[in-house]
């Protein structure tokens, strides 16, 4: 099954959490495929499992059963340590709560993934500056995160996500903390990255934003909705 062309494949993925209130089935047999170069938005109410779905793609979480393939790697075969390292090389993560490290500069934050994974030796500074230019904030390179705005921080986070030139960018509420205009800008940036060949999967609760994305999937109660079940308003908004 790993011979097909999709960059991301989830096969019959189930996830059950053990909580003090009893076992909680968050994903109920999800099948999901993303091809290279796609820009996908995943929407759904809170608690629907959309974040868990995203976490399967990044390897941050593991399915209770089912398989996950990303960029040719079967993630379920890797242990926690290996997944972290694989992720640093292959997936750029832009999460609402995973911001920049506060005690190093913006430039160093962008350099960090290269440092951890061991890529671009001797070239890290230059490459990091290039990335900051790409997201249009080269002049904040030597500032500390607390000295720049939320929008700038998020753009720096995107630059960091691009650090090791991953094929896949995954975002979980990447615009969650931002005001309307900044959110729009980030979205536009994503569009540009896609046009440059990246694959982007983004979780958002902002349905209007999602409506602008070429492909939208909806998660409800642990399952992906089929095309016909998707809210007509989204289709109308395109």
């Amino acid at each position, binding site marked *: 099954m790993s011979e097909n062309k999709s960059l991301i494949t989830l096969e019959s993925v189930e996830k059950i959490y053990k909580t003090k209130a009893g076992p909680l089935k968050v994903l109920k047999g999800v099948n999901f495929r993303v091809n290279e170069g796609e820009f996908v938005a995943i929407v759904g109410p809170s608690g629907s499992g959309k*974040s868990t779905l995203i976490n399967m793609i990044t390897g941050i979480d593991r399915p209770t059963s089912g398989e996950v393939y990303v960029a040719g790697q079967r993630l379920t075969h890797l242990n926690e340590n290996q997944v972290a*390292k694989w992720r640093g090389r292959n997936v750029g993560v832009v999460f609402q709560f*995973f911001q920049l*490290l506060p005690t190093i500069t913006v430039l*160093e934050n962008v350099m*960090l993934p290269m440092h*951890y994974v061991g890529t671009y030796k001797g070239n890290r500074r230059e490459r990091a500056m290039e990335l900051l230019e790409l997201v249009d904030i080269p002049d904040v390179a030597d500032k500390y995160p607390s000295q720049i705005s939320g929008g700038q921080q998020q753009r720096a986070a995107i630059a960091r996500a691009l650090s090791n030139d991953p094929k896949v960018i995954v975002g979980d509420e990447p615009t969650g*903390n931002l005001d309307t205009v900044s959110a729009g800008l980030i979205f536009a940036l994503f569009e540009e990255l896609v046009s440059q060949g990246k694959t982007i999967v983004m979780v958002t609760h902002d349905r209007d934003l999602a409506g602008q994305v070429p492909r939208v999937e909806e998660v409800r109660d642990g399952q992906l909705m089929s095309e016909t079940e998707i809210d007509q308003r989204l289709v109308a908004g395109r």
Partner: protein
Amino acid sequence: MKTRVRKIFGDILARRGRTALVSISIMIGVFGVSTLVGMSDLVVSQLSSDLDKDHIAMTHAYVVAPGGRISAEENETYLQTLSDLPGVLQVEGQAVYLVDWKTDSDAKFTSGNIIAYSEPFGDVDLEPIARVVDGRYPVEGQHEVAVEQRFAEKYDVGIGDKLIFRQATASDDPEQTWEVVGVVFHPYFTVSVALENNAEPENNIYATYADAQAIAGFPGLSSFYARYTDVKTAKADLNHFFEVISTETPYIPVFSFMDDPNDSYILGVVSSFINVLNILAAIAMLVSGFLVTNVINTIVVEQKTQIGVMKSLGASRWDSVYIYAGMALLYGAVGTIVGVLLSIPVAAWMAQELAPLALTYIEDFRISALGIGVGVALGLLIPVLAALLPVFNGTRVSILDAMTDLGIASNWGHSRLSHWIGAWPLPINIRQAFSNIIQKRGRLALTGFTLMLAVAAFMGVTAVFSTLNDQMKGLYDTFDYDIEVSPQEAQDFDTVQSLLVNQYPEIEAIYPGYSVSVGIEGYASEEAFTKGSNQLNVTGIDPASPAIQFDLVEGDGWKNDPTREGTIITKSLADRIDKTVGDTVVITVGGQSYEYEIIGIDSFPFDQMFFNWQDLASRAGYVDANGEPLAGAFLVKMTGDPDIEAVDDTIESMKEFLLTQGIQANYTNQPKAAEENAEQIGMFGMIFNMSSFVMAAVGAIGLLATLSMSVFERQKEIGVMRSIGAGSATVTTQFLVEGILVGLIAWVVALPVSVVIGQILSGALDFGTGFSFEYPPQIAVMGLIGILLVATLASIWPSLSAARKTVSDILRYQ
């Protein structure tokens, strides 16, 4: 209000690991304080009750009798003379000498002490004399003796048993049988010149003067002690007192011991030793207080949102303070209860062990209310006080701030320091570690301070005791002989010398020696025994012999000319009387004054003067019928470098041999004395270092707790690291590096602090006049290794725990 109380208990129970850590730390501190305060309270109380202020003597003059048998009646006269002196209220005498005894079932004789008084037992006023525990006091002329209670226990000897004594003089029945008629308890015992050490109660046998003299064959009393109208008069009169003894009695004063009944010397020494221990214990307690500050601070930071929620529900600032201070109180209560309970048996046991060192005795298991009280007070008060700052700080937060805490909160980057660190050419993660430490400096400072104090105390204490050890070793190295033989009665040197040399081929040489108490003009003694007087117990040697290896810092002494006239004095004495080589010093001995030229200054660490022994003995009146000086001590040097056992064997044999020649003597195994001294110092050092180990333990717990809390707080950071490719090794290393860095910084700060602690300690312990505190560099290295070890161990668990957190765990917490 029930909600507050329920929250306190709920929180304490929810994080059991943390509660355990903090409570254990407090328990250690309380245990230390309660034990030490309790132990010292018990010892000091006992000592105080032993020393009857209204009857204790002020002046103790230790004497020797040159020869013959001085009877009890003769002593009466001398005692009368002395008590007639102006200012004197009462004078009594004591005789303490060595005897060999055995029971009729023993094969060999055992060495013991015989003690007699110038008064009947029941009338002895000026010393806390033995009280009868069983039986009665011995009566004169009935071949009766009493034994001390500990003697009875140790040797299983009781009333009705027969003791056989052996003594040297040929004229008496060599083996005599005496009956034990009583068991006494003798709480406070004094030093005896004849024994050259303390009369240990477990070796004490009591008899009336005449009987004791018959048993041991001693010449006369070994000490006089007097009580004056007041201490001032006593001190002022000391020289005169000695003069009168010299001129109007056959006795020769050897040294003296002044004591102020209201400020007893022993009490003072014990108290100062105990005070130092108490201070160290208090520091350990404070240190565990720091941990509480740390933990409570973390809690209020962790619970920022909860505080906000409670405020929005109507909780006042005081409600919040109540809750978090209440938690601190509960931590304190748990630790205190266990700590105090544990301290009770330990304090009782330690008091019993320490008592003999303080020259007293505690018979039974006792509980010190003071120890418990102090432990409880500190154990409850310190955590609450320690918590107040973080509690007031943390509960100040407005609802708005409390509830809008998103992402990784940090204000790093606005200070010069942050930019300066940013410029360091270090790998990113080490720079990050520094920045993190500086950012959290408040909290880590507390932990680092704890560790710093622990390692500083350790280094300071070790330095002090290592200095002491070295200097004591140096002191013992000064004496180049193996055995010191001090006969009970004066002997002619040449006779004894040829006797021993012929009998023992292993003897390389024997040197004569003599010591006596003299008055030095312009000298105010700082020595504990003779404080304030101008008396000093000085040493006479044969300058031609190598018995004393001088380490001269000035002058040549007897190096080039052993017949030279003059005296060698020690540096500490020279400084005190402000004289140097070439100056004259006037001493008074045997009632007369003599001038001596200072021909050398030695580095020996105590006040001391060295004379030609014949000169000294003659002037002191320690002469035979022809006026020839008699040697008071025989310094035996053996061939090669014999070990302690070899020396002991020789002493055993020598003892027997000399007894057959009619000579009863005291024997000192020099190498053994040196070793025992070193062991004692080592033991004291261990005790003091125990408190630094306690502090280190608390510091390590503190570091462990702080780092664990740090891990918990920095989950998001760990999540970020993991999400962008950091492997487990990277995460572990980050926390390990931080922990070790804290240790390193603490050590650097600890270095100067440890020097200060060392100075204070050597001052407080009052070792004596000549000890200068030195700080060997190896100790700094030891401290570094120790702190790195502690920091690493304390950081390992938190760093592994940090690495183990999976990103999904962290996300789920969000």
